[in-house]
Each structure stands twice: as C-alpha cells, then as structure tokens.
C-alpha cells in the first residue's frame, strides 16, 4: 500500500512532466492559452495514461519483446479514440478547441515512455498508480502554465476578467513565441527550486 502511494506521489513532484521529465512538450505549448483547455487536456491525458498503463501491465507477459512498441501504440491509440469520441459527444466546444491535439495524444512521448519504462515491468496496481500520478502531474503543470499565460495574456482566469478595464494584456504571452519563452522560464524556475 505504501508503495502504491509512493508511485502515485512521485508523478506530482519528483518526476512531474514536462518539467522534470522533459517529454510531451507539444500539447504543453499548444493548449495552455486558456485554463479550461489545459484542464481538458490534463483530464484526457490522465484517463488515457491510466487505462493504457493498466492494460499494458496486464499484457506485459504476453507481448513479445520485438513488437512491444507497436503493441503499446495500439493500446494507447484505442484509448485516445475513445477519448476523442466521448469528447465529441459530450463536450463539442472543447473538442473543437483542442482540435488536432486530441489525436496527437497517441504520439505524446509521456505515454509511450511510461509504458516502456514502467508499465511493462511492474504489476497492475503500481502501474495504475503511476499512470494516475504522472497524468495528474501533467495536468497540474498545464494548469500552472495556462493560468500564468491566461492571466497575463488575456487578463482573465477561466474567462472571468481579473484586472480592471484599464489593464493592457501582454498578448505576446498567448502567441506562439510566448509559449516557448514561458515554458523555458518555467523550467528555469523549477531548476532553481530543485536545489
């Protein structure tokens, strides 16, 4: 039980993606313009990661070594398709906003990385805890980055204005260059905190 908890917790700080594990940068840059998109993406990734970790862990003794990557990708792609269809049915505006980045969860290196490095070697319960932890950690990072960018870039938080009407938003932050600079500075802050 203690180990399950430890596997869960490590994704929240010790190995939090994308700051500690520098993987999965594309969605981190692309969907952090607004907080609600970031949360949607975080939930989608958490779901896919937990489910794929469970399935891969269950199948880990049956998958031949040579074709394991292809098998992992099929499992991940199946859950991504589920997310895509569910989101299309129940939250169409979010589906439109996340757009191409939902199918692209398949090639998010975090998922394949966890499958390869963790789920294919550990039993189901630990893999589930690991998937959940890393997924929530990823969601938290997206949330932090998105709140920073949305508050300063649009002057809103969850689409509610936080500053007075005289506030001039730094629109640089919500454009493509701002995403890179913001994430770079965030990594820098994490490096300072690590010491």
């Amino acid at each position, binding site marked *: 039980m203690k180990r399950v908890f430890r596997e869960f917790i490590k994704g929240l700080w010790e190995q939090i993606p994308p700051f500690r594990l520098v993987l999965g*940068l594309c969605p981190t840059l692309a969907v952090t313009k607004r907080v609600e998109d970031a949360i949607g993406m975080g939930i989608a990734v958490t779901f896919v990661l937990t489910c794929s970790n469970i399935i891969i862990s269950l199948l880990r003794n049956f998958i031949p070594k040579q074709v394991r990557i*292809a098998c992992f990708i099929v499992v991940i792609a199946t859950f991504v398709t589920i997310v895509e269809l569910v989101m299309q049915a129940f939250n169409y505006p979010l589906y439109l906003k996340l757009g191409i980045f939902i199918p692209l969860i398949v*090639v998010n290196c975090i998922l394949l990385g966890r499958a390869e490095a963790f789920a294919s070697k550990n039993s189901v319960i630990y893999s589930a805890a690991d998937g959940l932890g890393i997924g929530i950690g990823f969601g938290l990072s997206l949330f932090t980055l998105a709140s920073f960018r949305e508050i300063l870039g649009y002057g809103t938080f969850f689409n509610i204005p936080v500053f007075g009407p005289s506030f001039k938003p730094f629109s640089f932050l919500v454009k493509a260059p701002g995403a*890179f600079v913001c994430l*770079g500075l965030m990594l820098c802050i994490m490096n300072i905190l690590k010491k």
Partner: protein
Amino acid sequence: MGDYIVLVISCIFINNILLMQYLGNCPFLGVSKRMETAVGMAMAVVFVLVMAGAVTWVVYHYILKPYELEYLRTLSFILVIASLVQFVEMFLKKNIPALYEGLGIYLPLITTNCAVLGVCIINIKEGYNFLQTLVSSFSYAVGFGLALVLFAAIRERILLARVPKPLQDTSIGLVTAGMLSLSFFAFKGMIH
C-alpha cells in the same frame, strides 16, 4: 499553379510546423544540440513525411471512407506510420546502405514525432487532394528541417556563451526557440 506556390510558402514559413503549430518539439529540442544530427533528422523527416502523407491519404480515402470507418483514423494512421518507418528502415539497410548510415538512428525516433502524424491529420482535415497532400507534406517537412537546422546553429553558438546555471540546456533552448518563433512571426502578414 499559383495556389501551389501559396501552399508551399504558407506551409514552410507562415504555418511552420515547429515554431507556429508547436508540433514535433521533442525531437526539436532533443537532436538540435549538434549540426550533424539536426541535418540527419531533418532529412529523415522529409523522407518519411512525404511517404506517410501519401500513404495515409490513400488509406483514408480508399479504405476508411468507403467503409465509413473514419473513427479509426488515429489508430490506422499511427499503425501505417509505424510500419512505414520500419519498412523504410529495412529497405534502406538492404538496398541503400550509405543513406541508412546517415538516417539510420533517426528513423525509429520518427514514429513518435508528432509532426508526422500531425501533418497527416492536417492534410485530411483540410480536405486536400492527392497532389496537394504531397506538396503540403513536403513543404511542412522542409519547414521542419529549416527550423531545426537554424535552431541547431544557434544552439552551437550558445554552447560557447556563459549561460546562468538554472537556465542551462532545455530551458535556454526553449527561450531561444521563442525568439526564433518571434522572427517567423514576421511572415504572418505575407499572404492575406
């Protein structure tokens, strides 16, 4: 003809896959530390992306669409890309060893390069015909290569500079990418 020129320019510069659409950033930061690896990766991407674009277009329009299986798009595309990459690798190893030497180690990495799957999906979403798909895949790949090579050159210079400790490596890389992206931003007004 004019349409195709506009498509080429918009795919290479205005909608640059790396700096404007944020696709393929993991290899962008991963292999850009040295010029040689960046050039190798850029060439491998051009090679695979054109083939993947063509094959996925055929798969979508002649297999998925007639049987109303569009919801299997993600699953089938990633499988097609993964097997294509494997196939290309085997073919090159056997028939063109010189090229394999150059591209070899970058090929497996391409399967999880989101630029490849991303461009294939964009091509389908935009409703391009076959020729447009080829042109756009090629131009996106060239845009990827261009950004990667430019970035690698800058990064080689950064190695000589004194960077504050917390900013080192990926962190300064991302800030630099931001500056590069800012310069690509200037292309936005080129086509209305």
